């Protein structure tokens, strides 16, 4: 499967202008994101990476870094909600 990480980085750079994020950096902990960001991120993962985001995927760990998003898209989510 393609490495989606460059596209995730590009998305983050677009939505959080001027922020160079490391692949394992916690996006949320860095405090750069606003309240609309989750919505935009979910739409990006679904629309541009082609991975439907379901109710049970809604665990912060699945979206918290470039690596985590890549794992989710590759079908190896960090966490599954119960």
């Amino acid at each position, binding site marked *: 499967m393609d490495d989606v990480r460059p596209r995730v980085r590009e998305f983050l750079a677009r939505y959080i202008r001027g922020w160079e994020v490391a692949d394992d950096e916690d996006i949320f902990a860095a405090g750069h994101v606003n309240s*609309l960001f989750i*919505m935009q991120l979910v739409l990006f993962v679904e629309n541009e990476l082609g991975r439907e985001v379901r109710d049970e995927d809604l665990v912060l760990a699945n979206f918290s870094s470039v690596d985590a998003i890549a794992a989710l898209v590759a079908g190896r989510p960090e966490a599954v909600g119960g």
Partner: protein
Amino acid sequence: MTADPRTSTPPTPDGAADPRTYASHAPVGADDGLTEAQRTVRAEFAAFADEHLVPHADRWDRDEHLPREVVDQVAKAGHLGAAVPARYGGTGLDAVALGLLHGETGRACSSVRSLLTVHSMVAHALVRWGSADQRRHWLPRLADGTALGAFAVTEPDAGSDLGSVATSARADDRGGGYVLTGCKHWITFGQYADVFLVLARLDAGGHAAFLVERDRPGLDVEPMTGALGTRASMLARVHLNGCRVPADHLVGRPGFGLSAVVATALELGRYSVAWGCAGLAEACLRACLAHADRRHQFGGRLRGHQLVQRMLADMATGATAARLLCLRAGRLREAGDPASVHATWMAKYFASTAASRAAGDAVQIHGARGVGPDAPVQRYLRDARVMEIIEGSTQLQQIVLADAAYQLFPPETERTNG
């Protein structure tokens, strides 16, 4: 010799504009690239609004009451199921068609439009984040109006700052669910709703959204009256006094109640209000075109006075631009594009402020009639004021859009430096 633009338009013998121009079904403006199907449904929505809503909206506003039969009529027309996919019994309109519905309804009556708004917000949040059981149970009922949905988030101490919601959701030591305690106010159609989407704060920290049926012990609905605008929207205060809900009434994951579930509902709410405001601005314009054509002062029709023309020009431009921003947001929503989020904020910001300006000018053009009880423009003015407060106030829109501008446009220095 150049033709005087003022004399070149009226086509009828006595110089009055052709009254058909104002016929309620007449399409206003270009169709802006709507598909055949979208044009067809728009005409249907317009016809429904003109027949069932326009003639009564002023009375509902005066009475601060929307009769149940009107809700039934709206349900029967399928309008409550617009945000529900066909496989759950809804009409599953595409985003643009849904916008056209809310726009035509908003042109007629902002209170009925607000019914469509909050009901669709609940349905949409469930489509997106509800469990399979929740979708199976609620969506068919929401689709046909057997159950009316309301959105219960705002509290006396939590308005724009929704993160400060204080209604608590405590884990229930008896039987595993949650116990909700708190007060929600300004809940649109709270007086009629059968199910509320409630945002609460978890004991463990973070927020969660719950479905709470009206008849659950511990939930009490208290009507609110005397609002400035959308007066027939059956507002209520909703008290939750140790109201127990089963664990399967939680929507989405704990901790995502605000950032995903309520945010998803609010995105649709904002989109709906944006279209409603585009409709409201159009209603102002059409009322003014008719009045400025009929009314004579200083030996001529109002429409011939240049200061009045300025207002008509601004109204026509504002209504058109609002509609175009709404269409743009709708197309991006339909495509699932992340850019739809900002596009929707922009559409709501522009449309609500354009509707406010249009309604202010509409009252002005109508003179004393505009403030009297017989002209709908005074209702438009009051309703438009509400639109700048709900679904993100004008100031919140400005804050978000200023931030968004840095994402949407490259700042000059970046470009020159390379």
